């Protein structure tokens, strides 16, 4: 019997990888739904009162109690819930009276716009700052970067947001205040992506774009500062270990400029690790968005999740948690795709 041809092996490998991916994704989902569902059922909040209100009559209360299947054991409730989710039914949100799925599709672009901008801020400033700190280890640029990132780490984003608003919006007037754009620009731009900066460019509405940018820059910078702090510290420590390697000494001895050695050769080798850090940072930005969105009245996923938690709106909470879970999975897959681009070894690895 002859060995299978190369392309057969490749296809088999591909199928295996897809199956593995699907397996891990579905396991992750199962875990997510299970944990959120059980937490939702064991907390001492009456989900029926959350729906019918304090003033409801006993008969209404009991009807809803039955409708929610609360009279059945928890494993059975979970099974019923799981079946619904598999049919794409995330239920209706108590707060908005809309299907959770349509709510999520509406609020997510706002968060995406905010966190992508924050990530750009974090990466564009965090990486160079980390590199500078590493090359100046122990001297003042290093101290400043380390102190600055420690601040970013330890200061509550809620407080930072309020102070930012007070200084840049209320006192200096450099940026626009809370909200995604001025009320006078409401309903001008048709919704395509849900991200106002993108939609306004698509519609050719310059004025709306600049207004939206002016609203975006402060929350994005505040949130970006959080990721900057993390990215800069990680870059610094990755770079320090690279700069100790012998090849650095060799390239310097060969006569390359220090600039080239640091920014091309050493940083080039750090990218692989940085891709993972950036992907994780993006995930944590979604969590940081909860407080930022509250301070900046930014109608995104974070504000939605906060409200639904306070309203004991379990469908919305679970739906939102699942969405964040999906984002994490997508990010992981993305970083898998990006590895070969930044690491030649990953390209040739069998």
């Amino acid at each position, binding site marked *: 019997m002859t060995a299978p041809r190369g392309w057969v092996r490749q296809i088999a490998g591909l199928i295996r990888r897809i199956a593995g991916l699907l397996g891990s994704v579905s396991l992750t989902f199962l875990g997510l739904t299970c944990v959120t569902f059980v937490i939702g059922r064991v907390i001492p909040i*009456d989900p029926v009162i959350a729906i019918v*209100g304090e003033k409801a009559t006993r008969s209404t209360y009991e009807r809803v109690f039955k409708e929610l299947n609360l009279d059945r054991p928890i494993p059975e409730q979970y099974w019923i819930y799981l079946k619904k989710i598999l049919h794409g039914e995330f239920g209706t949100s108590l*707060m908005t009276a809309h299907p959770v799925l349509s709510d999520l599709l*509406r609020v997510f672009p706002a968060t995406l716009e905010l966190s992508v901008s924050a990530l750009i801020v974090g990466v564009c400033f965090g990486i*160079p700052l980390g590199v500078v700190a590493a*090359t100046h280890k122990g001297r003042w640029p290093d101290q400043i970067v380390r102190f600055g990132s420690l601040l970013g780490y330890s200061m509550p984003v809620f407080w930072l947001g309020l102070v930012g608003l007070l200084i840049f919006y209320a006192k200096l007037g450099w940026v626009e205040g809370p909200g995604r754009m*001025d*009320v006078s620009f409401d*309903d001008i731009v048709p919704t395509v992506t849900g991200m106002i900066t993108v939609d306004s460019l698509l519609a050719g509405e310059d004025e709306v774009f600049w207004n939206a940018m002016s609203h975006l820059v402060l929350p994005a910078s505040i949130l970006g500062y959080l990721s900057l702090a993390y990215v800069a510290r990680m870059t610094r420590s990755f770079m320090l270990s690279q700069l100790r390697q012998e090849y650095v000494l060799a390239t310097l001895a060969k006569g390359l400029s220090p600039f080239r050695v640091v920014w091309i050769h050493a940083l080039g080798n750090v990218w692989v690790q940085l891709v993972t850090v950036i992907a994780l940072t993006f995930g944590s930005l979604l969590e940081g968005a909860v407080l930022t969105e509250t301070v900046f009245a930014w109608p995104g996923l974070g504000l939605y999740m906060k409200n639904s938690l306070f309203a004991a709106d379990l469908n919305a909470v679970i739906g939102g948690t699942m969405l964040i879970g999906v984002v994490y999975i997508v990010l992981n897959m993305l970083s898998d795709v990006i590895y070969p681009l930044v690491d030649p070894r990953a390209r040739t690895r069998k």
Partner: protein
Amino acid sequence: MLNRRTFMAASGTTALTSLLAQHEAQAATPKDTIVIASQIDDIITLDPGEEYEVSGQILVSNIYDRLVRYEAEDLTKLVGAMAQSWEVAKDNKTFTFKLRAGQKFESGAAVTAEDVAWSLQRVVLMDKNPAFLFNQLGWKKDNVKDLVKAVDASTLQFKIIEDFSPVMVLNLMATTAGSVVEKKVALANEKNGDMGNDWLKTHSATSGAYKLVSWKANESVTLEANPAFHFPPKTKRVIVRHVPEPATQRLLLEKGDVDMAWTLQADQLKALATAKDVKVETFAYSGTWYTNLNLGDERLKNPKVREALRYLVDYDGMVNSFLKGAFIVNQTFLPKGFPSYIDYKPYKLDVAKAKALLTEAGYPNGFEIKLQCKNASPLTEIAQSMQQTMAMGGIKVNIVTGDAKQVIGDLRGRRHQMTLISWTPDYLDPHTNAGVFALNDDDADDKPKPLAWRDHYFDPTSNAMTMAAVKETDPKKRDVLYAELIKRITDQGPYILMFQPLTPVASRKNVNGYKPGIVEDTYFFRTITKS
């Protein structure tokens, strides 16, 4: 080391910042628009046949008109709104309304009595939260079409089954549940026989002061004035923005990006008191803040113990310190500003009297008891103050705080001893509160009634007095009956009735004319002006 590239990056950032600064739009809101910062995440629908939340009520009452209502011009008098005049038959059971001529819906169609009849029937047929208001009249799904009818294009007639004072019936018609929607438009958007409910959640079909332009959940609501309304609104547009964080509301207001801020807290209000372009006004609000005393507990069943506890609360001390400007003392179940309200305040902190009463009741050394409340300010502060003053009388209070749904769950299950909580009325008639604070005609466990039942307060005399008052047709006699009932519940009921909240409203100094009544239903936008 500042190299070429970091320098370029830095200068790029500066350029971007200054570019943004150049594009900074004019801070002030448009002249013909009032922008209000508030918390509107409680809105789940703007269909008047369904909404029952605070923010929804405010908006719906500004969007839709109804047969009769308390108008902004005189909040103490019930007058015709869509109705030009009305008649009540001698038996107090048949009500006939003549509609005002020339009223139009936002579609341009004329308002007919059929629209009114259909709108009232719709509330009962859809059977959503507000349906209970009309169910009280004896209107049920199977009879409402016969009881509520259009006699001709401009005459509406309805009959009620229960014995009720006409004052009470008209007060029910004055609630947002009595709002009139355009039948044709609602039915054109009907889905699966929902009488247009799904569509009306986010759209309007109104003849009232404003039409709904948009509601974006957790973001904003935009209303546009109807210039043809018989009280033309003074500003063209009203936008209510959802700003969850009160400190952010304050910044927006000081900066002039909003004209009014509605949900500020004590510390922001204090800071705004000296602000240059901002004023703060307070208006009475209709809530009742009180403590439930569960008569299922042997000690609390003793009226002397309840009386002693009422003497162990420092009402004045609280409203003069941490509740200052936010609450007034009110020891009755009716909020000040309600029809039939009386000013009755027999209790103040009196430790000696309380001790004497406790000794008479057989508890000379006091006892230990649990006080539950929601974990939110100022409830926890009030609870702490009560803990301190009750300790002076020998009562050791253990405060247990929890989530609202948890606290209410215990109340509904009658598992509490004492619970500090608040209540808001459903409509502007004394029966709305009498019916819950005084009435409990069956104390069985499987017969849940609101507040009196929760505390095992079963008093045939209070029940009889409540029913006599709601049926009394002579308004003067009705006031007398309610005055007696109020005193009875304050002195004997299962409560320590304590406070009534105030609503603070902060607005820019160029914004005038906003004078809200004590219920959300009377928060009129149409009188607001901006110079």
